[in-house]
């Protein structure tokens, strides 16, 4: 008879070991899936995890890893602060879109003027756009007790429609022959978020992601505010006695994660993407939720988890191209990662016992 017994204290060992075990289990289960599809599993796993880092052309892929991981880490770092406090911002995708619209709006309004002030103004607008969008569920929750999970999620769909409206309407490139999509900011020097060192993939968004990791680490582990946030998540009643005002806490957590998601959107639209189009958002806001949990809501963990997630994307494309693996198999593979993570997570709080429970 196998049963689960709750641990008195969460296991320290499993807190660290869970992500590693999840990755290994994903490799095994993914390998079986790939083998069932008639591909060499070892080759597929190597293609996904090894080749982008050390295979041929790795110098290009390493840069792309940062490009892909940057927004994931930036968003996840903010989300994790809220998740620690029990504030569930599920709408980072919408805040990402709004940051991009606000930032690109500044650039398109200023076009074609050249000034060193344009890019900083865009960064500010991007953060504000994401912050403002996150404030809607925050205010509704603080005032009327609505669920921030639902409201922030619903605001994603509003943002998507606004994005489509912008791409087909006010922000449409007047020189685009009637085709949708804004001007390409990559061709507008004052607004462009370029690669800082050619070939490295490093742009201001990646820099911001590193700063966010350090910043949230200091906030959560070296500052009284972080202590309060963690207490609020673990023991809401105790937090009230310690002087935490719930409304302010909600506004802070949603505001911070919204601003960081907005920044991620701005850096993306001004850099790698370049354009406001109806399909601009590629799901970073949702994937970042996985990254936050994969990284155990810890800033350093998130940094590693973001890079790992980016690796599965880039390696996954490579496996499609070289081994003709279907895209759906890659997506299933990524899904397994979260599945195993949540599964192994059980071991952090429970231990497996054989035999009957003692009375």
């Amino acid at each position, binding site marked *: 008879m196998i049963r689960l017994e709750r641990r008195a204290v969460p296991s320290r060992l499993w807190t660290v070991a869970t992500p590693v075990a999840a990755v290994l289990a994903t490799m095994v289960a993914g390998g079986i899936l790939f083998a069932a599809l008639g591909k060499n599993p070892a080759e597929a796993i190597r293609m996904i995890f090894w080749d982008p880092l050390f295979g041929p052309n790795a110098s290009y892929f390493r840069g792309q890893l940062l490009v892909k991981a940057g927004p994931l880490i930036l968003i996840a770092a903010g989300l994790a602060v809220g998740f620690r406090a029990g504030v569930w911002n599920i709408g980072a995708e919408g805040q990402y879109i709004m940051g991009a619209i606000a930032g690109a709006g500044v650039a398109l309004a200023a076009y074609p003027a050249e000034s060193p002030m344009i890019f900083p103004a865009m960064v500010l607008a991007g953060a504000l756009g994401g912050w403002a969008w996150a404030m809607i569920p925050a205010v509704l929750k603080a005032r009327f007790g609505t669920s921030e999970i639902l409201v922030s999620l619903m605001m994603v769909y509003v943002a998507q429609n606004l994005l489509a409206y912008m791409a087909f309407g006010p922000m449409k490139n007047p020189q685009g022959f009637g085709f949708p*999509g804004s001007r390409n900011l990559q061709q507008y020097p004052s607004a462009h978020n370029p690669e800082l060192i050619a070939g490295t993939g490093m742009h201001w968004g990646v820099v911001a992601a590193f700063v966010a990791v350090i910043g949230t680490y200091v906030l959560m582990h070296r500052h009284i505010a972080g202590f309060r946030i963690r207490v609020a998540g673990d023991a809401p009643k105790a937090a009230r006695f310690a002087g935490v005002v719930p409304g302010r806490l909600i506004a802070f957590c949603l505001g911070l994660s919204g601003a960081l998601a907005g920044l991620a959107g701005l850096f993306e639209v001004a850099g790698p993407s370049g354009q406001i189009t109806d399909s601009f958002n590629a799901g970073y806001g949702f994937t970042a939720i996985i990254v936050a949990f994969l990284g155990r809501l810890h800033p350093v963990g998130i940094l590693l988890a973001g890079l790992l997630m980016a690796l599965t994307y*880039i390696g996954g494309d490579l496996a499609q191209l070289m081994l003709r693996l279907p895209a759906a198999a890659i997506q299933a593979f990524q899904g397994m990662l979260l599945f195993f993570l949540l599964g192994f997570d059980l071991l952090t709080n429970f231990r497996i016992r054989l035999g009957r429970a003692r009375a």
Partner: protein
Amino acid sequence: MKRRSFLTSTTLAAAALGLGLPAMAQEPLKVGFIYVGPVGDMGWSYQHDQGRKAIEEAYGDKVVTSYVESVPEGPDAERVLTQMALEGNKLIFATSFGFMDSVMNVAAKFPDVKFEHATGYKRADNVATYDARFYEGRAVQGTIAGRMTKSNKIGYIGSFPIPEVVQGINSAFIHARKVNPAVEMKVVWAYTWFDPAKEADAAAALIAEGVDVVLQHTDSTAPQAKAKEAGIYSFGQASDMEAFAPAPRISSIIDNWAPYYVERVGLMLDGKWASSATWGGIGAGEVQIGEISEAVPAEVKAEAEALRDAIAKGDYHPFTGPLNKQDGSVWLAEGEVADDATLSGLNFYVEGITAELPK
């Protein structure tokens, strides 16, 4: 002859690469495809993949093809295109409008790699564009729809308000009105190329408005399923969708990219590839009209086929004056034919359509 020129072309390619390696005659030409949807969408991407298979069939071991499916437009597309170029693909087909800027960026970095971009308007020495005159097929569909409707209401599921789609709506409406002056056209925008759920919703909305023939410019078979439930008529899009014949699917527009792909790869093998803009229609075989099913009366079928043949021979252009714009101003005078430049940037409805075109 072919073999000799093939030898020359690979030698040239190797020399152009500047690798200084001895050219290997056996080395096949690598051709890459990047799709916006899954190859199993049974519509747009599926048809492109049929074209890819036609290449393999035509050239056997002289070519190696590979593809990556479901690639989001934006930075991901740029990375996948770069991956393909780095992996030695010498001819790359990018099969969605939204890949345009990514293609241009990557093409600039790989001057020795040839790119073919579907439905776009930006070209370079190593970037060609190709598109199909789907509006020719829409004229045939409009004729059938105008004859088949009892409620005199025809529905149209639009994807995005871009010129290609606007051409189709106008063409279908003009020809429906020609055979049935009482006909009205309802347009619903799904803002997607492929999303079965959204497409089904769009079809349901049209059916609720009393529409009894549905045309679609989206790629899934979801609207066909809705039409079947409601007992109304529909047309296959991009692919034949013959599973829904003889009703609701009474005919279809089939994108047939195979002849173009086979021709372009042939030119590449002969070393004669050059950048060009191709816009083929029914005459060139790029647009095919799927079997008109027995649900359509014989005289309507004959009428539709006569129109198809007239367009194929070049005797008739679907946009022939007199035609007014929606606001009543003159677009084409009696006997005047729309020029390609206007068509490729078409951003207005013709007179008689009451819907408003999203700006």
